[in-house]
């Protein structure tokens, strides 16, 4: 995926890594507003399966997305140990439910390898590169791609 690599900014940057199941992912730290513990969300009718509902974030209504389900994996069973990454996606704020935040990484573009050709469309859509750190594999995902702007598909 040379496209992804080309689009990366030159020089080093910080990523925030988190765990879902036995996989690790990371997103650009610049899009993360805060990290908070899991609170019970109010369910929304007729919402996509990965939308867990909404919570009150200091007076604003924040939708919570089960990132595991959004990435096409098992639906999360939230426990108090789960955390919500409050991230800015375009002009919206979304809460991402993940199992745990594991690391903050400082990487350069050289560390990021292109995503191998895989058959799954979903991976192609959101994965922007792969990092190998301490024998771990961390997938860099693009939040904008996960939550397209069109209204019918958004979050």
């Amino acid at each position, binding site marked *: 995926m040379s496209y992804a690599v080309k689009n990366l900014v030159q020089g080093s940057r910080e990523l925030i890594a988190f765990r879902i199941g036995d996989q690790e992912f990371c997103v650009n730290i610049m899009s993360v507003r805060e990290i908070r513990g899991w609170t*019970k*969300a*109010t*369910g*929304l*009718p*007729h*919402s*996509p*399966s*990965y*939308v*867990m*509902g*909404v*919570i*009150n974030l200091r*007076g*604003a*209504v*924040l*939708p919570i997305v*089960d990132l595991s389900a959004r990435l096409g994996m098992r*639906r999360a069973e*939230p426990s108090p140990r789960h955390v919500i990454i409050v991230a800015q996606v375009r002009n*919206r*704020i*979304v809460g991402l439910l993940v199992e745990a935040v594991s690391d903050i990484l400082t990487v350069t573009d050289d560390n990021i390898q292109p995503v191998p050709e895989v058959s799954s469309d979903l991976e192609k859509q959101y994965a922007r590169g792969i990092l190998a750190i301490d024998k771990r594999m961390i997938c860099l995902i693009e939040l904008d791609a996960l939550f397209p702007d069109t*209204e*019918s598909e*958004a*979050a």
Partner: protein
Amino acid sequence: MDMNEIKEIFFQECEEQLAELESGLLKLNDGDRDPETVNAVFRAVHSIKGGAGAFGLDDLVSFAHVFETTLDCVRSNKLEPTQDVLKVMLKSADVLADLVAASRDGGSVEEGRTRGLVKELEALARGELPSGGAAAETPKAAPAKAAPKAAPAPAAPPVAAAPPPTDDSGFQPIPFTFDGFGEEEQTIEPSTFEVIFKPRRELYAKGNEAALLLRDLSRVGTMSINCDTDQLPPFDKMDPEEAYFTWKIQVKTDKGEQDIRTVFEFAEWDCDLDVKVAESSEEELPMVPVPFDLSVLDDGSDASGEDQDASDESAANDAAAAVAAAETASNVSKMAAAAARADKKESQAAAAAAAAANAANAANASAGQTIRVDLDRVDRLINLVGELVINQAMLSQSVIENDTTGTSSINMGLEELQQLTREIQDSVMAIRAQPVKPVFQRMSRIVREVADMVGKSIRLVTEGENTEVDKTVIDKLAEPLTHMIRNAVDHGIESPEKREAAGKNPEGTVRLTAKHRSGRIVIELVDDGAGINREKVRQKAIDNDLIPADANLSDEEIDNLIFMPGFSTADKISDISGRGVGMDVVKRSIQALGGRISISSRPGQGSTFTMSLPLTLAVLDGMVVTVAGQTLVVPLTAIVETLQPEASSIHSFGANQRLISIRNSFCPLVDVGRILNFRSMQANPVEGVALLVESEGGGQRALMVDAIQGQRQVVIKSLEANYTHVPGIAAATILGDGRVALILDVDAVVSASRGQSLRQEGGMKSDMSLAATG
């Protein structure tokens, strides 16, 4: 304050004047012949001209001047304001608005259009219309004929061309009168007029001022004033709002009676005015001539400053008290007069009264004044108050949970706090409430322009334009409304030939009304056109793959097809409508405001679009209910009554419908939990509570919920800000426990129960299932 700021204020005032001008012209168009309306129109143009002159906006001044000249002919009854005349005037008002906009934003206005209108206006002033022609033969019209000569060519420096009365300030309310020219011949020799001027209380109530009128009169000629204070009652019996004085004035002038009357023209209807030529100038009236010292006026306003301050407090209390300051101050004027009379110096009484009355005027001006506040500041305040309400609710809840006695003083304090918060909230909301008038007025221009473009003759009738609604709603209303108006004019109303063939008035009517209904504002747009051509709409929908060719649709369903995305029935894409954005966009923007739009159409008789919008986007009174473990808020305005259904009143109807009998009428039962997909099985109605609701489309439904928790005012939080529209849900709110609760969209739920799918409306994919894991 630098020049730019002053200029900005001028432009803001221009907007107001333009609105005034247009509404006045429209009133005249509707047959209103009240001279005050004509005067208001005249004043608006005059003020714009005056202000523009001060800023050297020559284009604006010259056009306004020509316009004013023609209006003056109307005002002096030399020109009959017929429909044709008013058409030109309305166009002129549009051009004037464009010129103002161009002066502000630096654009330019199509010169040909301006010039064409200048010619038309000048022709009108000459009386070159059938109706004006007759008037031209009367001797009074002679000055009108002089108008075009006096009126400057559009390019000429206007101030220079204007006659002396206006060139000192430009704001001088002595208008450019042609009467002077005509009258000159008759009254070359100075003559003495006797003027008896007795203001009525209305004169002061409207903010007019005797002293200023007298001052203006002093410019007409040399005068001597006598103030008759005989009617002034003893001090303790005085009504501060009543007018007691009569002034007898002798004016020696070489001008005519008309000039004297002109001074009083804005006050004419609020006073008794008698102007006549003094029978004999030798016959001296028993009065002391007053040297009219204008500086007294200024001193007076300072002197009564304290009283004014005192009255300010009460004035601040509520809007009704706005006049109070003026009243108090005019009270001062009478007190001063009474005091002066005690001294038996009547001449001074007049001066003192005039001085204090001037103060009254100043007070009136300040009391009636508005302040312009940056909208951001208001919004910040509203947000803060919203947080305050949530916080207060949270506090109440935790106190109730921890309060074992239940009668502590904390509870009472909290109750007071709750009332106060509510009052604060209401007041803050009132700041944002504005009449829909400006939007409606913009529509009349759109109707004119579009009708002109498509060669139709259309009248816009507006009703309820003083209906107030939150400013956000107003702002967001303009666009969809514009679109609908364009549609109505372009597609709705037929061409005059077709209308005549159908036996209708060739002039089409578009009616725009606003009214409050059960806590919402309902805006209706009615045209008397051909109605929706259902066959054509259906065909179009089939062509565009919106419905299958064999779909069996009711009339109502066909009408509603026009709200589908990508639907446009115009045969050819015109300049006006049909750019691909259609009624679906209108519907979406109305929905985004928490509103609904519906259409009803009768072939040959026209269509009605009904929009219902919330009055405010910030708070609502709601009933907090439980449905399948979820807490929901149902807007109180929608609920007619609540009841506990008995098993005997529930009747099955068809396969899976149930009706509840309420006082011998049957009402469909709607399980909210089922509609919102919170549960898969219908709940047992006997275990729950039924909320009887009335929906926008009429008809009642009984909404089944599990339990009622209570009633509460909630702050509306947008779901759309970070998420998207959820079918069946109007918005969200935050309850006392800090959790988010959803606000039910009653109308959407009701229409869903009629068989229209909630999901379809929201554009949700069918594979999406509920994620109520919370």
